[in-house]
């Protein structure tokens, strides 16, 4: 058994002539949080969809628990334990916490043809699970729309874990959140990892990624610029690697230039 829970080796994905991903490699151990950093257009979305089984990689292999895996559908990825939480969270705000938690995988009881959705059991589990994160759902039949952004994110993550995710793929979980809400979500991510899950955290926010990540993979224009352990790289270095760095340097120079012209 190798030390890695899941390995994505030399993944490439092409759309016609466009090279969306080229030779991206990521390896994760249990309990590790890997942050995938990249600016807009770096290929993050394509990579997520490849991990989630939506796209089939054109090159490369996915190895999960020492076995080579080929996904034919998102369901396959889900079944072996890769749980993806998309940016839109797949939550319906008009539906209750419980109905969202079990959406598509409702527990049932009763005889064939008269099977009913076991709502009592579902309510209990949903309230219990949310309680473990420290979110007190007073009433699991309340609409998700009444929850805060951070709580919704935690609900979506908690749902993925409950349904057997061993690898969590999180797409920009903190992007729309304020500082307090974001830290609540990040705390929960760390807690999930400490229970033995491998987490791939996709973000363009280094300030959110750096405190929680064990390793960092930087993606730029479809290519990986390498994976770095936390001890080997500083926050500033990461930031400048995300292509944003150069751009920002350039911007600074240009601003100075403008300043100079105006002063003359």
């Amino acid at each position, binding site marked *: 058994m190798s030390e890695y829970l899941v390995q994505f080796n030399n993944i490439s994905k092409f759309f016609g002539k466009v090279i969306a991903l080229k030779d991206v490699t990521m390896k994760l151990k249990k309990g590790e949080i890997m942050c995938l950093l990249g600016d807009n257009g770096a290929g993050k979305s394509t990579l997520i969809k490849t991990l989630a089984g939506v796209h089939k990689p054109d090159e490369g292999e996915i190895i999960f628990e020492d076995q080579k895996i080929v996904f034919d559908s998102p369901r396959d990825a889900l079944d072996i334990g890769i749980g993806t939480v998309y940016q839109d969270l797949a939550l*319906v*705000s008009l*539906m209750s916490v419980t109905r969202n938690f079990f959406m*598509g995988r409702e527990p049932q009881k009763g005889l064939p043809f008269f099977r*009913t*959705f076991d709502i009592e059991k579902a309510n209990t589990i949903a309230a219990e699970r949310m309680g473990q994160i*420290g979110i007190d759902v007073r009433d699991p039949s309340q609409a998700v729309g*009444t929850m805060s952004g951070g709580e919704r994110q935690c609900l979506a993550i908690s749902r993925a874990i409950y349904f057997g995710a061993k690898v969590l793929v999180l797409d920009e979980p903190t992007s729309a959140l304020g500082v307090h809400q974001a830290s609540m979500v990040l705390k929960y991510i760390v807690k999930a990892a400490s229970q033995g899950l491998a987490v791939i955290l996709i973000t363009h926010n280094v300030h959110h990624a750096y405190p929680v990540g064990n390793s960092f993979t930087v993606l730029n224009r479809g290519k990986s610029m390498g994976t770095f352990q936390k001890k080997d790289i500083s926050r500033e270095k990461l930031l400048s690697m995300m292509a944003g760095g150069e751009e920002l340097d350039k911007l600074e120079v240009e601003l100075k230039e403008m300043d100079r012209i105006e002063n003359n």
Partner: protein
Amino acid sequence: MSVKSESIQSKKDSGQDERLKKISPFRVLLNRPELGALGGSILVFIFFGIVAGDTGMFSAYGTLNFLDVSANLGIIAIAAAMLMIGGEFDLSIGSMIGFAGICIAIPAIYWGWPLWTSIIFAFAMAVLIGYFNGIMVVKTGLPSFIVTLAMLFILRGATLAITRLITGRTQVPGLRVLIEDDPIAWLFATDTFQWLFTWLGSMKLIALRTDGTPLATGIPPSVIWFIALTLFATWILMKTRYGNWIFASGGDKVGATNVGVPVGRVKISLFIGTAVASTIFACIQVLDAGSADTMRGTLKELEAIAAAVVGGCLLTGGYGSAIGAALGAIIFGTVSMGIFYTDVDTDWFKVFLGAMMLIAVVFNNYIRKKVTETK
């Protein structure tokens, strides 16, 4: 059940978040989609109780009369409501009623089929047409409004053309004699609880004809179907996995797909549901009248949608209830019949219908904001 509520209770009491207000029972009620329709129907009954209380509107005969009208509308309104919760519309309901009517009448009268086979034939056609509507919407991604609007014209036109081609007329009479001894037709044509009405009549508790039989002979089949469908639809929506999928498909198609809900299959089945409900409506009316008319059901799709909206369905999908739609149908049915018992000109009914719908939409919109308001 009790264990669960206790554990949640204790969490509440431990006061994890002191900013949270306790939710009043009133707010819980306010969160139910059928609240508006419930209030509306109570108001309607109070109004007619005062205005028409002594006119015979609420006699056994009068009550069954407005219940029959409500029930007929209710049968299609419930199916329309379920489809709306699933995020789609069906504008072909009215045309489907006309089409189903001649699917029963022409084979039975002109081709010599037994009545029951032509009834089954009509239901088979309904499933086919519902499936076609559904697959068109799901596969093309076109708005169901457009797809079913096209079906509205196609079906009405085909009904008229086929009937005239085969019969040379636009009406097919002569069905009444076929109902007796038919193994299926009684499902749509029998008044139930006749013994009760006979007994009530013999006790002189309800109005009698001059020959001594009661004026109201039994509960019309529409009412039984209406009650059964309301219960069935409510059970599906609230108590089954498929019900949860309906809410999910209408609430957020992409999200539901991502967590494994078969959104396409759910929507197709709901379109089949509206077509089948239209056919139930057609069976009851055609067998009651003894004839099929090509124009039967005209504008019924809009009344069904109106009843569903008054019943709390959101036009955007994902929210609503079958009981709400049933109450919406009762409001419309009661007013459309009750207006005869008042001094108001019946021409005003449509004005009422429109105003009622407008109020309902404004109210529902407000409720949705309440339900989804963030902290």
